């Protein structure tokens, strides 16, 4: 039988002291779209759910020396933000493709990354946008680059006594173009078979001056394809170069997709190869559109 109590603290300080008091007996709940499903499917629950929904001050999308997005910001808010659509296009594409309107109206960005599914749709975009996760805990604040945040399938560096409060994206991302491809069988209500995010920066004469590639469902955690990124830097932007980057990204140097019921490994590699190139092209077009 499912049995739990709930607490609705009104401030972050209260959340932190409750986490300390209840320890492993408690779990945080934000939008609840992962938590409620898990309770129902496993017929198990923590003793206490600590709700974050009263923390309205952690719902924001701001720009001042970089972008700041509160952990309780819903995917719907990201989808409807013109700034996110124009300036953080990959994140816009990731958030807008999560579940349905009903899910996006309550599900949060913080919940998506803390749940840490290998398929999390905002993970690839946040990786290529070079986001930093800001956590608050008993010892105060700390910041962790998103590339170091995921430690395993459904595992992160976020400790039991900590709360993720913000995602920070550096202001230099303004000079990048970005794009995210969610490969799935249907257009909606489907987890990705594979996710590919790319962010590019161009120098003079269309030379790629910086590049980031993020892959999801390609390894136990969302990953950066560093070798393919290194290859791109300093190269001219053209189809051959992008195709080669796709090959490197799909190689064991960068990823280790597995065979699963939903898709076999060889096919995942082909998607990576194809879509790293396509998303690279799209990211580059977006730089040109905005300048």
């Amino acid at each position, binding site marked *: 039988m499912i049995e*739990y109590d*709930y607490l609705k603290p009104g401030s972050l300080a209260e959340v932190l002291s409750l986490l300390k008091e209840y320890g492993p007996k408690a779990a945080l*709940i934000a939008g609840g779209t992962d938590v409620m499903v898990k309770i129902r499917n496993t017929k198990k629950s923590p003793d206490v759910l600590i709700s974050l929904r009263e923390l309205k001050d952690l719902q924001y999308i701001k720009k001042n020396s970089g972008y700041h997005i509160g952990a309780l910001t819903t995917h*719907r808010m990201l989808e409807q933000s013109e700034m996110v659509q124009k300036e953080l296009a990959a994140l816009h594409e990731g958030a807008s493709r999560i579940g349905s*309107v*009903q899910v996006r*109206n*309550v599900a949060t960005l913080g919940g998506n990354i803390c749940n840490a599914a290998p398929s999390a749709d905002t993970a690839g975009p946040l990786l290529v946008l070079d986001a930093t996760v800001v956590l608050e805990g008993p010892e105060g604040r700390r910041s962790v680059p998103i590339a170091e945040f995921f430690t395993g399938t459904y595992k992160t560096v976020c400790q039991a006594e900590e709360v993720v409060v913000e995602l920070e994206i550096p202001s230099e991302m303004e000079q990048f173009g970005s794009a995210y491809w969610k490969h799935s069988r249907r257009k909606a*209500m489907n987890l990705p078979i594979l996710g590919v995010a790319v962010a590019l920066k161009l120098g003079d004469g269309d030379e790629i001056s910086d590049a980031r590639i993020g892959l999801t469902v390609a390894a136990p955690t969302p990953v950066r394809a560093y070798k393919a990124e290194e290859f791109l830097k300093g190269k001219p932007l053209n189809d051959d170069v992008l195709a080669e980057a796709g090959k490197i990204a799909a190689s064991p140097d960068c990823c280790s997709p597995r065979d699963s019921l939903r898709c076999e490994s060889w096919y995942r590699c082909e998607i990576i190869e194809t879509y790293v190139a396509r998303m690279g092209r799209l990211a580059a077009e977006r730089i040109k559109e905005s300048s």
Partner: protein
Amino acid sequence: MKKVTVSFTLNKDAVTAEVPVTWTLLKTLREYFELTGAKEGCGVGECGACTVIVDGEAVNSCLYPIFEIEGKSVTTIEGLANEDGTLNPIQQAFLENNGVQCGFCTSGMIMSAKGLLDHNPDPTEGEIRSSIAGNFCRCTGYVQIVEAIDMAAKTLK
């Protein structure tokens, strides 16, 4: 089993309910208030049959913990028709366009359509389709539903 007392607005009425803490909004609507318009199809956010409006936004009531509803405003399919029994234009449009066959998805579909039209009175076909992407229908094939929502938009304008 531990209970919780919640007060909220339900179809314009101020209500209070005392139910087990672990209940969802859907269970409370159906079993405490006996409003059985919202359906349980899957219970895990996949089908949309349980869709209701909370504070102006369509949500899956099967995933909504009842303790989160305190102070909020909930509209269900039962709250759409006028007091004299005449139907809301969205309901009317579903009837006139054969947007209803077995009816199991219908309350959820109509609430999702309401969630769309309240914010966007002049939606494109793409916007209509994306607003009901989380509502599964096993009967109609969706075409008549999309047409019904389009017709409702035109009537409401």
